[in-house]
């Protein structure tokens, strides 16, 4: 049977991808940040999964205002790298796992999640930056990826509660998939940041650290955090953190923390990263 072996969370700041693609990771500005991911790259080499269910949000790349799915699950064989306005990132295309993806989609719909099934979805920095941060710059990605795109661009995003419950449903789906597949669930985005308006540059380190503490020990409490609290305390783009709750929900009620890294800033954003396992 398939099994969820770890949960990873990480910010997906586009500037991190740019720094890697341009070889600037040892600059004074970037070095401390990339140093914080060294342990995880090593850990990932020792714990490479077969499949990553990668929860992220599209940033007006695959989806325009023509169509905005709350939850879209990528069931394709392959996902192209999106052009976000400066050409696609020079990283390998992303290979999917259609069989497991369709199984999760069917199982989640039967569990009353109103999934959008998607078979053509160019993936942007939200998905590729986490891969780069955790796998470096390989010729091809070392595992298959099932993208789950969550709307956090047009208000309202799904509630934290809904996200946590979707994580639980993903957990049930993976555990009912017959082939032996080692699956990790990654939740990306955040941490506190605001990219727009006169309040741009907002960071709330106390909020971020409390969020990471509660993510491990009190996810049921986080589940009830209203959107207004993210917007007010963690910046308008801090609401991306609901995606971490999908990862956390997939791990089951108790989790242990294997690693944590936190750094301010990356461009406009606080960067947080954790490795968790079910306990």
């Amino acid at each position: 049977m398939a099994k969820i072996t770890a949960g990873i969370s990480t910010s997906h700041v586009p500037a991190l991808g740019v720094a890697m693609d341009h070889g600037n990771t040892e600059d004074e500005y970037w070095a401390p940040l990339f140093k914080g991911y060294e342990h995880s790259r090593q850990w990932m080499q020792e714990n490479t999964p077969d499949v990553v269910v990668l929860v992220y949000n599209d940033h007006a790349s695959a989806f325009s205002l023509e169509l905005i799915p709350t939850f879209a699950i990528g069931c394709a064989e392959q996902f192209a790298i999106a052009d976000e306005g400066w050409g696609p990132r020079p990283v390998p295309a992303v290979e999917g796992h259609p069989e497991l993806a369709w199984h999760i989609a069917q199982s989640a719909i039967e569990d009353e999640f109103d999934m959008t099934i998607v078979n053509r979805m160019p993936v942007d920095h939200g998905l590729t930056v986490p891969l780069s941060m955790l796998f470096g710059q390989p010729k091809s990605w070392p595992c298959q990826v099932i993208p789950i795109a969550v709307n956090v661009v047009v208000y309202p995003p799904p509630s934290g509660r809904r996200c946590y419950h979707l994580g639980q449903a993903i957990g049930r789906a993976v555990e009912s998939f017959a082939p032996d597949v080692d699956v990790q669930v990654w939740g990306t985005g955040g941490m506190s940041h605001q990219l727009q308006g006169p309040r741009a540059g907002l960071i709330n380190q106390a909020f971020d650290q409390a969020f990471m503490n509660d993510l491990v020990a009190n996810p049921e409490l986080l589940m009830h955090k209203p959107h207004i609290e993210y917007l007010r305390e963690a910046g308008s783009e801090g609401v991306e953190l609901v995606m971490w709750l999908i990862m956390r929900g997939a791990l089951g009620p108790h989790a242990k923390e294997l690693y944590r890294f936190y750094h301010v800033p990356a461009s406009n954003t606080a960067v947080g990263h954790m490795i968790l396992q079910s306990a």
Partner: protein
Amino acid sequence: MSNKDYNDIPGTTIFDGDMARKGYWVNQFCMSLVKPDNRARFLADEATYLDEWQITAEQRTAVLKRDYNTLLSLGGNVYFFSKLFFTDEKSFEACAAQMAGMSQPDYRAMMINGGRAVAGNRSTRVEDR
């Protein structure tokens, strides 16, 4: 739309249904810049390219002037108009600094020092300041 509990957050526009309706075409215009041909056509002749889109005169002026704070108030969304930053070969940091009303070095210094504090930035209501 009712119950906008987020409207008192200073310097912040929440991209809800009302804003998405207002900014539909200006955001769709921005989105078109993910294609290299469109970027080239736009840069070669911005006015003509903009003629193809059903945007208001105010939105048009804000685009031509790269006046992002005004664009926000007219329904522009930052993820959409970031395509315009990149078309201009500007970084997200440079454009965020502009919206924050700061020079890029000052903005970067603020970020390195821990970013903009949340204290005093939670609400425009007096009791919360």
